[in-house]
């Protein structure tokens, strides 16, 4: 199972991309753990997580084809 990860705003500066794919990731906590390993600057970054466009506040099990979005504080307008 491959999970699509999309990131926005200042997180694109940390990850140097707006999208990546992670294989065999079970839940959102594992996404965060894996990304923190790869991108240490992410540990101190502030963001919310959305799974398939819904923000989640607790660890969430991922389904086949889920998209996980990392959303730093909004600054539209």
């Amino acid at each position, binding site marked *: 199972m491959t999970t699509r990860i*999309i990131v*926005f*705003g*200042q997180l694109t*500066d940390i990850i140097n991309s707006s999208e990546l794919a992670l294989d065999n990731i079970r839940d959102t906590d594992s996404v965060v753990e894996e990304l923190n390993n790869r991108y240490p600057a992410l540990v101190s970054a502030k963001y919310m997580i*959305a799974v398939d*466009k819904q923000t989640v506040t607790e660890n969430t099990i991922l389904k086949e084809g889920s998209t996980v*979005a990392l*959303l*730093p*504080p*909004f*600054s*539209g*307008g």
Partner: protein
Amino acid sequence: MTEKKIKNIFITGPISPTFISDSIAKHNTKTGIGAHSIFLGQVRRDVINEKTVGAIEYTTYQEMALEKMHEIREAIFEKYPLTCMHIYHSLGNVSAGEISLFVFTSAPHRKAAIDACEEVVERIKAELPVWGKEVFEDNSHQWKQNKTEN
């Protein structure tokens, strides 16, 4: 939520004053309207640590933003007796002095139009997944932060 009822609000580049007047002009056949309230966000040429903002580059998580905007729109129409509401937000590059947000509410009476407009602006700033990158004149950048204003 019906997928097909979701409207796009995003415009590439700045929102032009003539786009705004065209939008106003279209309302002259809606003769039940007595009051329009309009909010416009304009990019400031802020100076931060001696660097000058030349433009803001906006990006969004579009699918999520449009669903959220739809939810806000429904809630506002539920709460206020409005005739209509139009919202446009820029994506991409908007230079200092140009307009990046256009919120336009109309109602028979002024209180509904004014209150709805203000509430929509606050909700857009707080809830829409949109990000502004302040690009300085030397091409370096920083990410914009929205202040809550109370």
